[in-house]
């Protein structure tokens, strides 16, 4: 009797770990708590939408998403979590990365461990240069900023005042905008950099009013800073004088747009995704998103990037019949192109960064809610920052 039991136990022990090993493991490294908690949650929601729509196995392996919370701007935690995912959990893919510092810190891990790293948000140009295993499915800041300047100049807006938050993404966007605007024949009349956690926009807005530009280009972290700026802008009557606000779309992020409400009406932004985008893929995505994540609010660009990211991962797994090898995976990812809920996208084989359409949108009220309505577009934009 004892021998039978031992035999059974040995059998089970040898079988069970084998079962676990066949799962396709994806490590999702992003902030899930703290001030950037929404980033991780949106990514997770986007992934769930995809799995709900397409099923949760690929090439005979069940997809397992291991969530690791970086708790905010703490790159050393991100790096440690990535190391643990690779060494302990033996993941096949690293994904996520809500903030650029996180992505930069983990780049080395991806290179050393030869694991494909799918970036689903971090937007600085420099991210994809840090490791040959990084592929980005979100966007690069200059990619979204440059067309805005082009559009502005084309539409008679030649004198622009730039106001950005004083940190790397803000300064990057300021540089990219200035370059593109000057090339298109416009002029930056004045520029100001506000402290990152600035409570009072009044003095800066006053400066804008005094220099009387045609438009003001703004780059501040989405959420509170965006709202504070727009409120001050409206209150001081700058809108009434005819000064337009142009910005990148993350300030009118679909997830927070309704909270901004009226203050955002009329804002012109450039971005790669709007929940109001009219396409079959987007409708399917939004439906799957709602079904898989009831009550989480509106999907935003991070959810779409995650949706596309995991879609790409599944495509790679199919092509490699479930045997994931880092170098082979990157070869496949490099030349990937498909239609995303945002529009057509492709990966640039030279830089492993994303090529996509950038839309110019205006915030309008449809029924009881606010949306970014697309009215112009620039196709196949690469990251000019490289």
């Amino acid at each position, binding site marked *: 009797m004892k021998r039978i039991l031992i035999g059974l136990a040995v059998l089970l022990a040898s079988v069970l770990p084998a079962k676990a090993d066949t799962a396709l493991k994806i490590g999702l490294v992003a902030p899930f708590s703290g*001030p950037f*908690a*929404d980033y991780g949650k949106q990514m997770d929601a986007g992934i769930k939408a995809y799995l709900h729509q397409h099923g949760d196995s690929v090439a005979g392996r069940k997809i397992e998403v291991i969530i690791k919370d970086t708790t905010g701007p703490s790159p050393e935690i991100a790096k440690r979590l990535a190391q643990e995912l690779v060494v302990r959990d033996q993941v096949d893919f690293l994904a996520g990365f809500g903030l650029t510092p996180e992505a930069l810190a983990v780049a080395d891990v991806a290179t050393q461990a030869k694991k494909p790293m799918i970036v689903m948000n971090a937007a600085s140009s420099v991210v994809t240069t840090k490791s040959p295993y990084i592929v980005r499915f979100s966007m690069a800041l200059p990619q979204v900023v440059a067309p805005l300047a082009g559009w502005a100049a084309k539409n008679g807006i030649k004198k622009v005042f730039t106001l950005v938050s*004083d940190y790397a993404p803000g300064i990057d966007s300021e540089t990219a905008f200035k370059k593109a605007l000057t090339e298109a024949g416009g002029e930056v009349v004045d520029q*100001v*950099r*506000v*402290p990152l*956690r*600035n*409570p*009072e926009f*009044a*003095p*800066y807005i*006053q*400066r804008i009013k*005094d220099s009387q530009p045609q438009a003001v280009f703004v780059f501040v972290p989405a*959420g*509170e800073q965006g*709202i*504070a700026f727009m*409120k001050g802008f409206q*209150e*001081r*009557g700058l809108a009434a004088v005819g000064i337009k606000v142009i910005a990148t779309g993350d300030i009118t992020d679909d997830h*927070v747009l309704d*909270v*901004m*409400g009226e203050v955002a009406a009329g804002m012109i932004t450039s971005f790669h995704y709007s929940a109001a985008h009219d396409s079959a893929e987007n409708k399917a995505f939004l439906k799957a998103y709602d079904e898989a994540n009831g009550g989480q609010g509106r999907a935003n660009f991070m959810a779409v990037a995650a949706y596309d990211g995991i879609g790409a991962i599944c495509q790679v797994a199919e092509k490699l019949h479930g045997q994931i090898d880092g170098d082979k995976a990157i070869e496949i990812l490099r030349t990937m192109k498909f239609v995303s809920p945002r529009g057509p996208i492709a990966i640039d084989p030279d830089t492993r960064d994303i090529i996509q359409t950038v839309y110019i949108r205006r915030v309008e009220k449809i029924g009881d809610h606010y949306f970014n309505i697309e009215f112009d577009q620039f196709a196949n934009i690469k990251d000019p920052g490289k």
Partner: protein
Amino acid sequence: MLGSCLGVLFDGVAYGSLLFLISVGLSVTMGLMNFVNLAHGAFAMLGGYLCVALMSRVGMPFLWTLPVVFLAVAVIGAALERTLYRRLYKANHLDQVLFSIGLTFMAVAAATYVWGPNQQPVRLPDFLRGQMHVGGVDLGVYRLFLVGLVILITLSLHLLMTKTRFGAHIRASVDNQAAAAGLGIHVDKVFVLTFALGTGLAGVGGAVGIDVLGLDPTFPIKYMVYFLLVVAIGGAGSIKGSVLAALVLGIFDVAGKYYVPEIGAFIIYGLMLVLLVFFPSGLYGKKA
């Protein structure tokens, strides 16, 4: 040029008034009870959330929420004082700091749980929005309202402190607790009421400040430095000091950001260092 200068000055005064409103309670508490209360911002945040809740759930008009918020936060403050704070009066400052940081964390987490991590939208009544043209300068109506409110409250506080018996009790207890107790002043009661008053004012400040400072669960941590600076520079226990310090900080911060935006953020810290070197106990503080 002069117009913009006056405009900047006015904005600085408005910002400073808001800082004062929130920080005055902290100053009196620190001066009176010698208690370092880093959780003071949490009471302001509570006031803000209560205001939003009253406006959106009950439909109360903005101005009516202010006295309600004051009373509600004051009551909660008094309750906390009786149960928790009073146990730590004799403790050293480190313990008080840690205790109040712990309270702050709990408040932040609770706010996140109940209201979510995002900004709270608030719709001000129409008559408080827009700008007013006063003597060649465009002044924001809401900021005028802020300044007016704070002047009203400061005058009331001044009257309270100088013309009422309770005010005299407070001043006596701040100056010398033992002697005051010896004279038959119920120092305990003074503590509770003062703490309630201070937190109630912070609550009003939080509510009134949503439009200017924003409201989200990290409010107490974000603005804690500013409140502490007002108290440190003004001197704990002194209302006059708080007014002066808040105005100075507000004006320098706003003017600095307008005229020299490259070093905007440093001005407030640089100012703090300079002032603390020359006035280690604050502008109007008690000497050790």
